[in-house]
């Protein structure tokens, strides 16, 4: 019999399209499959929802995306408090739109997480029972309108530094979702910066509330990306779910935003903050990591109040979900 390969020469594997051959989906023993999968991801390959994936990878992506979704959902509550108190109609529209966008991000991200196998109701149960977390910055009060500017400009900026890096995530649906999210966040940052610059050009008391807001938010901002971690031990980096360490993200944030804050004549409440030219990185007072731990375990100043609001909201809207999920009534 003629060898079919002799008639139709086969390219060496490296000339085949990246990801075209999902070798780990074949009928292989688990360990071998795992190795192929790992090699694919480590080489920059992407994973789609229907691909086979090791439990460790599935769990890690799910945990990461769920925390992100929770943060988008809880993150609108501090800003929501200011919709009715926005100083002009245009600011009210912009803030309403931002809140709407962030809830939309939660919807997109909960969809990504659901496809990994955890039902949305279970994610809400865990969030409201305190079994899963949301970002530290959403556990604090918003005292004045200046907080809204600082949140939309700097909290969103610190977030986008991390989110941009996620556009290269190994999990395809997450990476693609981040394209849309980053686009919308970039407008939020402009909205926030516009609020801040307007206050700077305003009255002395407007500049005073702005400086006060920056003083209160600086600590949480510096804690937001988390403590320095060991690159070699970080499983999220290993699986390329994320691309950068917490310290890399914090340095990037400082490099871009410190000059922009100082440009406005504001004072950053850290006398130790300085760019070390020789080391090529920022020096700063070590953030209060105890505060971060306290806050993200729902012991922050507003943690309980915001979770209580979510519980109330969930009960009040239960009838909508019941109506949508109800069996269709038999035709009369």
């Amino acid at each position, binding site marked *: 019999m003629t060898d079919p390969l002799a008639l139709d020469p086969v390219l060496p594997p490296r000339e085949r399209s*990246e990801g*075209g051959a999902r070798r780990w989906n074949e009928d292989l023993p688990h360990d071998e499959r795992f190795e192929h999968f790992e090699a694919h991801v480590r080489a920059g390959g992407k994973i789609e929802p229907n691909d086979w994936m090791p439990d460790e990878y599935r769990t890690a992506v799910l945990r990461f995306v769920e925390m992100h979704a929770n943060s988008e959902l809880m993150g609108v509550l501090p800003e929501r408090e200011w919709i009715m108190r926005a100083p002009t109609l245009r600011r009210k529209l912009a803030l309403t*739109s931002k809140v709407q966008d962030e809830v939309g991000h939660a919807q997109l991200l909960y969809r990504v997480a659901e496809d990994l196998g955890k039902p949305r109701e279970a994610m809400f149960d865990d969030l409201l029972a305190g079994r899963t977390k949301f970002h530290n910055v959403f556990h604090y009060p918003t005292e004045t309108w200046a907080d809204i500017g600082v949140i939309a400009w700097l909290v969103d900026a610190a977030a986008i530094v991390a989110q*941009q890096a996620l556009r290269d995530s190994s999990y395809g649906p997450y990476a693609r979702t981040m*394209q849309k*999210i980053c686009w919308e966040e970039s407008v939020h*940052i402009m909205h926030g910066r516009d609020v801040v610059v307007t206050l700077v050009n305003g009255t002395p008391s407007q500049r005073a509330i702005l400086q006060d807001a920056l003083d209160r938010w600086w600590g949480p901002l510096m804690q937001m990306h988390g403590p320095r971690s060991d690159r070699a031990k970080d499983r999220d980096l290993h699986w390329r779910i994320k691309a950068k360490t917490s310290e890399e993200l914090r340095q990037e944030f400082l490099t871009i935003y410190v000059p922009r804050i100082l*440009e*406005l004549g504001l004072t950053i409440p850290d006398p130790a903050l300085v760019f070390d030219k020789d080391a090529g990185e920022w020096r700063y007072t070590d953030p209060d990591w105890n505060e971060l731990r306290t806050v993200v375990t729902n012991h922050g100043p507003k943690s309980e109040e915001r979770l209580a609001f979510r519980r109330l909201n969930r009960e009040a809207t239960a009838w909508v979900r019941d109506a949508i999920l109800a069996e269709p009534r038999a035709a009369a």
Partner: protein
Amino acid sequence: MTAANAPRPSGRLEPFEVFRQAKDGDAMRHGGNVLAPDAELALHYAREMFGRRGESVRLWVVRRADINVLEDLDLLQPPLDRSFKKPGGYVMRDKLAAARGRAGTTKPGARAVGHDRTGRSGEDGR
């Protein structure tokens, strides 16, 4: 809302829309369509039309009749000012110059390029 009412071609053949992923991790993009009597043969045709040169790593083939379409411009492009949702709605050059004048500072250098125009308008990268 229109596709379901579109006339079906003669015989048992019907159109299937083909979406293709050009490389690992890309979004699925519309490639074109094929006419087939059922989903199985539609997959074969799609492979012939959109996968013969190694230009795809994944194809999605969907019955056109199963696609729900929304193209009501009153809903999608309402004639209202929504500039506060777009980067063009925030022009800060003069305000920033005024703030610098007050504070006696200078414009930050190129290292401080911000995120005012990052991300993309959708999955297709435009």
